[in-house]
C-alpha cells in the first residue's frame, strides 16, 4: 500500500508510551519548542508508573549521611555486577538533581520535620560501600509513582505537549539504511491506522511481566516496544533477568512495597520464625530483592509456608502502630484489605514472590540511543531510535534492580534521551523519504486479525503461554525445566496462526488490541526462555539450580537475543565508570 493512503502526521519527535519515562522525555522536547507527539494506548495517568509505591532513590542525605558514590556501589553490587558502570554512575550522580527537579515541578513528597523531603530505608542500601543501612529512598507516602506520574503529566499539560491518547503503536518504520522514521499507529477509538512520521522515535512502552501468570504488573504491560524492536530485526538484551518481587499478594499479584520492610515490617514463616537473618545475617529483611525472593521460595519449599496450601509467608508491620501505618503506608493498607482481606494494623499480610520487573530490554547507551552490533564491529546507535525506562536496558539494573531505582531510571534517562534527541534533530534537519513497504508490513499485522476462520482464541493461547512461563521460568530454573518450557512454547506459538477473532468491528475493538499485544508477549517469552537456557550460571534474579554459582569468567557479559533463528550474541559489561574507579566484581553477600 502507498503510505499516502493512510493519514499521516508529522512531528519532530514521536514518543510511544505515556508513563514516567515517556512523559519526562516529552517535557524535555516540548520545553525546547520541538513538535512532539506522544502516543499512549491508555490515558497517560493510567500507565503502570502509577503503581510504583515505595519511592525514588537519591543520595540526598536528608536523614542519614550519604553520597552518590555509595548509591552507585549499592547499585553495582545489587546488579550482581552485570550493570554497566558508566550508566550507573550517570544515574546515581544525577539522582539528587532529578529528585529536586521533581520537587520543583510540584511533586507532593512527604516531608521531614525540618521541611526536607522524607526518605526511608530500602533493600540493598548501605553507607560507606557495604556498611550499615542507608536511608535513601524519597517518598510521597506509599504512592510515589502516582505522585510522579501525575506531576509529570501535569507539567506536560503546562508545556502543551500533544497527546494521542488511546493510540496503539503497531510497528516501527525503518528505511534500508537503518534510520527509524516513525511508527505506524492505530487510533483505538476509530480503529483506523495512522502514520506518525518523525525524525526521532522514542520508545517508552514499559515492562512485560504479563508473560507470567502471576505478576504485579498492570494488564497493559505487554512489552509492545520490545515486540516492535524484535520485528525490526534489532536485538533484546539480558532477557533472562526478571525480578520476582519478594512481596506480592498471592494469586492476585498486587505489590506490597519494599517500603513496608523499610518502615520495619518483618517476614515470618508458619512457625512464627523471622527467617531472613538465616539468609542475610546483616541486612536481614532489607537484603536485595533477589535474595529475599529466594529466601521466601526456600521457606515455602521446605514446608514452612503459611496458609492452607503453605504457599505464602507473613509480612508483619503491626508493631509500627495504627497511626504510622495510616500516615506512611495508606495505599498498602488499602491493597491488603481489598485483596488479601487483612488489615495490616491488626493482621500480617500474606505475601509470595511475584514477577515484577524486567531488567532486560531494548539495548541502549546512556543517552537512550538504541544500540545494536553492526556486523563484526562494535555496537552502533540505530539512527533516530531511542528507548528509555523499563523497556530499555541501559543497563543500570543488571541482573537485579534495587528498589527505588526504577522511578529514578525513568526520570534520569527520560531526560537524557530528550536532551540527546534535541541534538540529534539539530544535526538531522531533513526528513528522509518513507519506505512504503514498511508501512504495508505493519498494516498486514493489523489485517491478519480480520480473518474469520480459526480454531484458537487469543485468551486461550495467552493463558497457556503465561502458565508455561510461570512454571518453567520462575525464581528457580534448571536446564530441563527451561527446555521443557521452550518445547511447550514452540507448540503454543505454532498454534498462533490458527487464532482468529470473533469480533471484527473497528471502533474500540479491545479484542483486536489483545491479539496484537499477544504477538508482542509471545516474542518476549521466547526471548526470555532462549536467553535463560543459554546462561549457565546464577546471577542476580537468574537462579539456575544446575549452575548455582556466578561465573564471571564466562558470563560477565550481556546477552543479546535476535528473533531470527533465536540467535544469541553477547557483549561485554562496561566495567569502566565515567569518572570514578571500577567496582571490581566480588562475592555478593548481605
Amino acid at each position, binding site marked *: 500500500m502507498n503510505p499516502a493512503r493512510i493519514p499521516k502526521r508529522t512531528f519532530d519527535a514521536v514518543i510511544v508510551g505515556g508513563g514516567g519515562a515517556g512523559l519526562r522525555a516529552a517535557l524535555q522536547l516540548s520545553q525546547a519548542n520541538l513538535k512532539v507527539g506522544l502516543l499512549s494506548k491508555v490515558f497517560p495517568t493510567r500507565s503502570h508508573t502509577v503503581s510504583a509505591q515505595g519511592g525514588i532513590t537519591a543520595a540526598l542525605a536528608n536523614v542519614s549521611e550519604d553520597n552518590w558514590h555509595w548509591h552507585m556501589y549499592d547499585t553495582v553490587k545489587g546488579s550482581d555486577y552485570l550493570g554497566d558502570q558508566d550508566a550507573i554512575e550517570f544515574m546515581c550522580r544525577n539522582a539528587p538533581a532529578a529528585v529536586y527537579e521533581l520537587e520543583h515541578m510540584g511533586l507532593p513528597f512527604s516531608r521531614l520535620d525540618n521541611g526536607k523531603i522524607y526518605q526511608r530505608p530500602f533493600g540493598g542500601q548501605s553507607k560507606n560501600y557495604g556498611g550499615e543501612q542507608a536511608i535513601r529512598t524519597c517518598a510521597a507516602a506509599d504512592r510515589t509513582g502516582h505522585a510522579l506520574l501525575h506531576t509529570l503529566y501535569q507539567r506536560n499539560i503546562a508545556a502543551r505537549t500533544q497527546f494521542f491518547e488511546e493510540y496503539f503503536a503497531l510497528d516501527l518504520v525503518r528505511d534500508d539504511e537503518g534510520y527509524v522514521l516513525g511508527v505506524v499507529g492505530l487510533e483505538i477509538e476509530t480503529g483506523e491506522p495512522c502514520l506518525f512520521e518523525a525524525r526521532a522515535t522514542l520508545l517508552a512502552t514499559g515492562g512485560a511481566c504479563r508473560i507470567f501468570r502471576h505478576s504485579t504488573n498492570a*494488564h497493559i504491560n505487554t512489552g509492545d516496544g520490545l515486540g516492535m524492536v524484535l520485528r525490526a530485526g534489532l536485538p533484546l538484551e539480558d532477557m533472562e533477568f526478571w525480578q520476582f518481587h519478594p512481596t506480592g499478594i498471592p494469586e492476585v499479584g498486587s505489590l506490597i512495597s519494599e517500603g513496608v520492610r523499610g518502615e520495619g515490617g518483618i517476614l515470618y514463616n508458619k512457625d512464627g520464625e523471622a527467617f531472613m537473618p538465616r539468609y542475610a545475617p546483616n541486612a536481614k529483611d532489607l537484603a536485595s530483592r533477589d535474595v529475599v525472593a529466594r529466601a521466601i521460595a526456600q521457606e515455602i519449599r521446605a514446608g514452612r509456608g503459611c496458609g492452607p496450601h503453605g504457599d505464602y509467608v507473613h509480612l508483619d508491620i503491626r508493631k509500627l502502630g495504627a497511626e504510622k501505618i495510616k500516615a506512611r503506608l495508606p495505599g498498602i493498607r488499602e491493597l491488603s484489605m481489598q485483596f488479601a482481606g487483612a488489615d495490616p494494623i491488626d493482621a500480617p499480610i500474606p505475601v509470595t514472590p511475584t514477577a515484577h520487573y524486567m531488567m532486560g530490554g531494548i539495548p541502549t547507551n546512556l543517552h537512550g540511543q538504541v544500540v545494536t552490533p553492526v556486523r563484526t564491529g562494535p555496537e552502533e546507535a540505530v539512527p533516530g531510535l531511542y528507548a528509555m525506562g523499563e523497556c530499555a536496558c541501559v543497563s543500570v539494573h543488571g541482573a537485579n534492580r534495587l528498589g527505588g531505582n526504577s522511578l529514578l531510571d525513568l526520570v534520569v534517562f527520560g531526560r537524557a534521551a530528550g536532551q540527546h534527541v534535541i541534538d540529534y534533530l539539530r544535526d538531522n534537519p531533513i526528513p528522509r523519504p518513507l519506505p512504503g513497504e514498511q508501512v504495508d508490513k505493519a498494516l498486514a499485522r493489523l489485517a491478519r486479525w480480520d480473518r474469520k476462520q480459526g480454531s484458537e482464541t487469543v485468551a486461550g493461547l495467552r493463558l497457556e503461554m503465561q502458565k508455561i512461563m510461570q512454571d518453567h521460568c520462575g525464581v528457580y530454573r534448571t536446564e530441563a525445566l527451561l527446555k521443557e518450557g521452550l518445547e511447550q512454547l514452540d507448540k503454543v506459538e505454532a498454534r498462533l496462526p490458527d487464532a482468529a477473532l470473533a469480533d471484527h468491528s473497528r*471502533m*474500540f475493538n479491545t479484542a483486536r488490541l489483545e491479539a496484537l499485544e499477544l504477538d508482542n508477549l509471545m516474542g518476549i517469552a521466547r526471548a526470555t526462555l532462549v536467553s535463560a537456557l543459554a546462561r549457565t550460571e546464577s546471577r542476580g534474579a537468574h537462579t539456575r539450580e544446575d549452575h548455582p554459582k556466578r561465573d564471571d569468567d564466562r558470563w560477565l557479559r550481556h546477552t543479546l537475543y535476535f528473533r531470527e533463528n533465536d540467535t544469541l550474541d553477547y557483549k561485554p559489561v562496561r566495567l569502566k565508570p565515567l569518572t570514578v574507579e571500577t567496582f571490581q566484581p566480588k562475592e555478593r553477600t548481605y
Partner: protein
Amino acid sequence: MRFRIYRYDPESGNAPRMQDYDLAMDPAGKKVLDALIAIKDTLDESLAFRRSCREGVCGSDGVNVNGTNVLACITALEGLKEPIEIRPLPRLGVIRDLIVDMAQFYQHYRAVKPYLINLDPEPENERLQAPEDRAELDGLWECILCGCCTTSCPSFWWNPDKFLGPAALLQGYRFIADTRDQATNERLDFLEDPYRLFRCHGIMNCVEVCPKGLNPTQAIGKIKSLLVKRAL
C-alpha cells in the same frame, strides 16, 4: 452468576441494550473486573471496557454497578445483588459498551491549571515545606481521575459543559492548598463563577462514591470560604 451488562455497538446502527450473561464463577475474593475479564475471555470477546492496573490506582475502570459508580477492579462480587447490572458511568457519551468519552472530564481538569505555579528562581535543593503544610494536601493529591465522583453529581448532569465537577475542583484546590504555589488569586478568580464552582450544592454524591475515600465537597467548601474571606 448472572450479569446484565450495557451494550452499545456504534457500528451496528442499533440502539443500546442490556445483555445478560451467566458466568460460572466462584465469587469468593473476586472483583467485578475479574468477572468482566472472564466474560470477555470465555463468553463474548466483543464486550469492551477499559482496564489497566487492576488494583484501584490507575482509574481506568470506573463503571456503574447496581446503580453506584465504582471501580470494577476493587468492587467485590460477593454481596452484590443479582443480576449484577453494569452500565457505563452516567452522563458522559458512550463510545462503546462500558467505555465512555472522558474528553469533557479531562477538559475541566485541564481548565483548573493542575500544575504548580511558582515563579521564584528554583533553589539548588528542594523547597522546604513543613509536614503540617504538606498534610494539607492529603486527601487531594491522591485523586486518580476515574470520574466516579463527577459523573455521580446532579449538578454535573445538568451543566456538564459549565460546572467543573468535583474531580476538577478537588484538583483546583490541591494547588491552592499547596504552600509552594503562588497563583492562589488567579485560581480563585477563575473559580469565582456562578457555574464553574457555585453549581455545587453540597449534595455529596461525590464523597459517597469516591473509591479513594476523598472528599471533594469539603475541598469545594474550602474554596468557597477562601472566596468569602477574600471578599471581606
